[in-house]
């Protein structure tokens, strides 16, 4: 798994639960290091072992922890650059949702060896969407739920999210998105010219 993903997980955990507990996670997972390097590639199995150890350490279901990671990615100032990159997807939440189709390509433009599974947004009715997350990175669906929720806050939109089809065997995750209101709250500003530090 790409170091950027591992690094993001590490920074989520350390920020939320502290480095002492992170140390315990790395030990439980049998890692011989406690710092992931963002630009290196790590063994898949080892990374999933780390996630399991994390869920065990927190005594919470992994899906829940993954959702928290998705929220962290958008809302924490440490990873402001990621929020900005996502905001480039569109001026409104709906535009942003549509831009998710391009997310794997956009990601590859930035980091050529970071491959994300295909994402597919369908609009079923006004304000009714479903996002299909194709197989390739188990757990991404849960992360996306957290991320979509936090991005809705970011745009000031009110949405209801429901994750269906997790573990239905074909490895696909489908998230249904109901947009209740596009301008529910103020949202956070996005200044095109302000480069994240």
């Amino acid at each position, binding site marked *: 798994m790409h170091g*950027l993903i591992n*690094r993001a997980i590490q920074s989520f955990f350390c920020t939320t639960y502290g480095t002492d507990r992170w140390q315990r996670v790395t030990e439980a997972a049998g890692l011989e290091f406690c710092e992931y*390097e*963002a*630009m*290196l590639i790590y063994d898949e199995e080892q990374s999933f072992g780390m996630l399991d150890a994390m869920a065990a350490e927190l005594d919470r279901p992994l899906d829940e922890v993954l959702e928290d990671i998705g929220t962290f990615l958008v809302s924490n100032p440490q990873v402001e*650059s*990621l929020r*900005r*990159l996502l905001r*480039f997807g569109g*001026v409104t939440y709906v535009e942003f949702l549509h831009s998710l189709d391009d997310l794997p390509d*956009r990601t590859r*433009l*930035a*980091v050529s060896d970071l491959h994300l599974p295909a994402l597919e947004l369908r609009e079923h009715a006004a304000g009714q969407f479903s996002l299909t997350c194709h197989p390739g990175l188990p757990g991404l669906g849960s992360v996306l739920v957290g991320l979509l929720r936090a991005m809705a806050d970011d745009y000031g939109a009110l949405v209801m999210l429901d994750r269906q089809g997790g573990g239905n065997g074909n490895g696909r995750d489908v998230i249904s998105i109901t947009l209740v209101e596009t301008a529910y709250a103020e949202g956070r500003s996005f*200044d*095109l*010219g*302000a*480069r*994240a530090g």
Partner: protein
Amino acid sequence: MIDRDQLADTLELMCPMFVLLDPTGHIVRVGPTLQKLRPDMQMAGERFLELFELTRPRAVANLTGLLANAGTKLHLQFRDEPRTSLKGVIVPVPDGTGAIVNLSFGISVLDAVRDYALTSADFSATDLTIELLYLVEAKSAAMEASRKLNLRLQGAMIAAEEQAFTDTLTGLKNRRAMDHVLARMVASPVPFALMNLDLDFFKAVNDTMGHAAGDHVLQQAARIMVEETRDEDMVARVGGDEFVLVFNRLLDRKKLARIARRMIDRLEEPIQIEGQTCQISASIGTVFSNQSATGDPAELLHKADIALYKSKRAGRACHTFYSSDLTDSSQEPVPSSSMPPETSARAAY
């Protein structure tokens, strides 16, 4: 035929930085994004070339001159501050009622977006500027991650080098290790002897036979020193051809003189390298820990140096014990005329 207003309405959507000119080169209308760059300026009615300076091609004074460059890339900039540079293209309006200039930022777009607080609404839907900005940010973030990795690796490398106590070429202790050992030993009551050993004529080997040969000689010399000393003694390479040996609890002058002699004899044995013979020698100076007045390692090393230079002045290939009546000549050059017993110049052939 559509009229000028309809044309301008269309242009607003497709090229938000357009300028519509009348036949005299005066501005009729400008696109909303261009207007955003000069919010307080009434652009309509101004002469185009008085607002914008044409930097390439130069020496264009009027609309006719501009239209002579129709379809080619124009380089322009505002005449007032901030003198944002722009790219543009001009085309005549078909029925001769003027011309349309379409402008864009070119590479200055990054600064422009910041300076003028532009948003994605200021660019036409097909404009790739937003993608460009995305890419710039994404690449900067990725570069930053790479840069941090490099810094961490560099830090780790420096730390590892600093912590290293071994001279990688010879496997002996390095200067850093020697500093540690000496600091510990002068602080303990255990007496010891300290030898400074310089290889003589080593530079000649390096110069005439190359560094690989030099390295080989150093490794041979290191092996001899290790073999001629006990396990509890310390042998360190502290410079290119400088070594320090510390003999724990060994204050017997006869024994030390014997060890020194044996080392010199063995070091003088010719060494074969790729069919060539080279020969070096060594000069040694020895001091005892109880000859230090201050208990400072630097003082001991200096006194061993004084003895070493006495050996060098005595014609090299010999060993001297430090005594207080030796004069300090360690800073003065040693005559370099002396040659090894079997002159090493031969090694060059």
